[in-house]
């Protein structure tokens, strides 16, 4: 089991992010899987360090440290529309009290474990996007007349993870957000190029196949949000 079996060569990655056709061929799904996981871990490393430091400075788990940080924001923000049921100042105080509650493990260890968990979530999220979004795109590809198989498709589209590495810079103030936006747009372009290359569909059809799942996810998310808001409204009206 050599590293070569689990990762494409740096030259392939370089070709793919430069949208060269040679970057998307002769790669296996195994190599793409390795690349998605490794790049996800690399991208999550700086956020991991930042999260660990943030949680360790409070001496608690990361979610509670975040809750504590939200408390001051909540107390400063005028939230009159929810204050019928919750007093923002009191809610902020509650968050601070919860963040200060003692836990069995030492603070630094709790901080490390929670930040580690968040770090592991990075490659898992990338994997989810790669597989789930890929499955939806493959359905659209088939409907639009493509005949390619799953393995070469996933092998080629895995290269979209390379530009996503820029998201790892997100903790840097201002610049991080710009880098994240660039990374996402670049990844989408690489993904579209990979899909076009592997399916041999005309550019417009290939782009349609890549875009349709986004619209589907957007509509599904809006429906879910509307249902949630309706549920909250009915719950509040009941009281």
């Amino acid at each position: 089991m050599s590293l070569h079996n689990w990762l494409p060569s740096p030259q392939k990655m370089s070709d793919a992010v430069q949208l060269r056709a040679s970057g998307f061929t002769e790669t296996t799904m195994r190599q793409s899987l390795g690349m998605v996981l490794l790049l996800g871990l690399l991208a999550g490393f700086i956020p991991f360090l930042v999260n660990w430091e943030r949680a360790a400075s409070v001496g608690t788990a990361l979610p509670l440290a975040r809750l504590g940080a939200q408390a001051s924001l909540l107390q400063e923000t005028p939230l009159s529309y929810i204050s019928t049921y919750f007093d923002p100042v009191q809610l902020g105080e509650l968050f601070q009290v919860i963040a200060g509650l003692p836990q069995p493990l030492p603070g630094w260890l709790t901080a490390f474990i929670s930040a580690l968990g968040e770090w592991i979530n990075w490659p898992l999220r990338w994997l989810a996007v790669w597989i789930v979004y890929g499955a939806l795109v493959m359905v659209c590809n088939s409907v639009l007349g493509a005949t390619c198989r799953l393995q070469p498709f996933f092998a080629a589209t895995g290269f979209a993870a390379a530009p996503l590495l820029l998201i790892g810079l997100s903790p840097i103030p201002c610049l991080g957000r710009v880098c994240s936006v660039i990374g996402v747009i670049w990844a989408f372009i690489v993904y579209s190029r990979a899909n076009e290359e592997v399916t041999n569909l005309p550019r417009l059809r290939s782009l349609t196949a890549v875009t349709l799942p986004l619209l589907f996810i957007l509509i599904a998310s809006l429906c879910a949000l509307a249902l949630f808001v309706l549920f909250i409204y009915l719950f509040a009206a009941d009281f």
Partner: protein
Amino acid sequence: MLQPENYPRFIAKALLLEPDPFVEMVDDDNPWIEGLFLCACIGVLVAAAQLLGSLLLTASLPSSDALLNTVLQSLRQGAAGGEILFEIERALRSAWPLLLAHSGYDGVSFRLLSLATTPLGLICQWLLFGLSSHLFARAAGGQGALGQTLGAVALSNAPRLLYLFTAVPFVSVAAVLVHVWGVLIAFRGLEVAHELSPGPAALAAVGAWLLVLLVSALAAAAFGALLVISGGNL
């Protein structure tokens, strides 16, 4: 004959949608027994990882009683009063054990129970998925036997091994990833076991998955209704 030593190789190749593990499963003398044992192994491993994750999560957070008391104390000091406060407190108190059981936070005893229930649940789900996908595949013109389908479809549980990461607290594995990846593996399995072309195999895999989803949703709704009727005290 059981070949557990081959399972890691089968699982790795199934995750990569390669046909070899399905061919070996289908050609096995007892594919459904291999499938049954594979599902049980995956279930036990996942449950053990979740138990460890639950222990670490409980040690990483304040005690659940202290947390609940803090929230309730804050509610009592809030703007809400009388009947509303009573209703909120009652709802919170009845939902709290469910929240703990679901998250694994301060729910070690529940996780101990899941050492038995997770493999059993996984086996039931595999049987239902296997039977329905076999019926769908046969309807689509497939030639495989039920035992071969069960053996091939058992490998669709391979993505559940991602739940091993939940041994680290605060790791969350998207259920949609596990399900979609599982359906893709089942699709490959049905292609091999029933010698189907991609279209019918995909329809059989998705149809069977939708059926399992429907049954699971009905079971969850029935459990929820039972919970509401009993007033949160089952």
